[in-house]
């Protein structure tokens, strides 16, 4: 079942501008993670935010999480051509029903193009 859904599907900006991508999900989660994928380096983990956190920073990345709206956003400030990639959110959840159930679901991604 598709949990995280990114928006927009594609984004094109000029170098130096900020890029914002959004992720919405449907059920409660333990954490939400953002990943980047480009042809050169495969899928790389960017940042993880736990369900009890509201905001997290890592270098030029800022992630927010609103559990009441079941949404997250990834902001990349002062973008560079090297930021051109697809960005995925992934939601992780574990429930104790029965033997325990773990789910990790990736969205379809936002394709970011940064024009030099």
């Amino acid at each position: 079942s598709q949990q995280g859904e990114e928006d927009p599907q594609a984004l094109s900006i000029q170098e130096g501008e900020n890029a914002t991508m959004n992720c919405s999900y449907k059920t409660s989660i333990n954490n939400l993670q953002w990943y980047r994928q480009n042809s050169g380096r495969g899928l790389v983990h960017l940042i993880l935010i736990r369900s009890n956190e509201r905001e997290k920073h890592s270098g030029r990345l800022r992630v927010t999480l609103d559990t009441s709206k079941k949404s997250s956003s990834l902001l990349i400030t002062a973008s560079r051509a090297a930021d051109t990639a697809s960005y995925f959110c992934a939601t992780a959840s574990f429930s104790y029903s029965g033997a325990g159930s773990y789910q990790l679901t990736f969205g379809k991604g936002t394709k970011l193009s940064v024009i030099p």
Partner: protein
Amino acid sequence: DVKVTQSSRYLVKRTGEKVFLECVQDMDHENMFWYRQDPGLGLRLIYFSYDVKMKEKGDIPEGYSVSREKKERFSLILESASTNQTSMYLCASSLSPLLAGGGEQYFGPGTRLTVT
């Protein structure tokens, strides 16, 4: 640096063949995962394992099986390959307990499998 390696970058197999995809991680991670990635569908979880000889179904386990005889190695098996299993297969590993959300995942470079 965590390293996740996959046995082949490209693989071409015939319909009906038994296919083995191997994944090895070198960081003593408890959890290992197999995904497939298709255009427009994002990453979908096939199987995961949280300990040696333990395995759990993901979202799309049909037509696949897995084996984890050693902690560092997680194999994906296509019992009888079909053309709809043509895809990019990604292996990942993570350290944190799944009941806490599993933590960040480290991905291998992927195996592009073509079934003809």
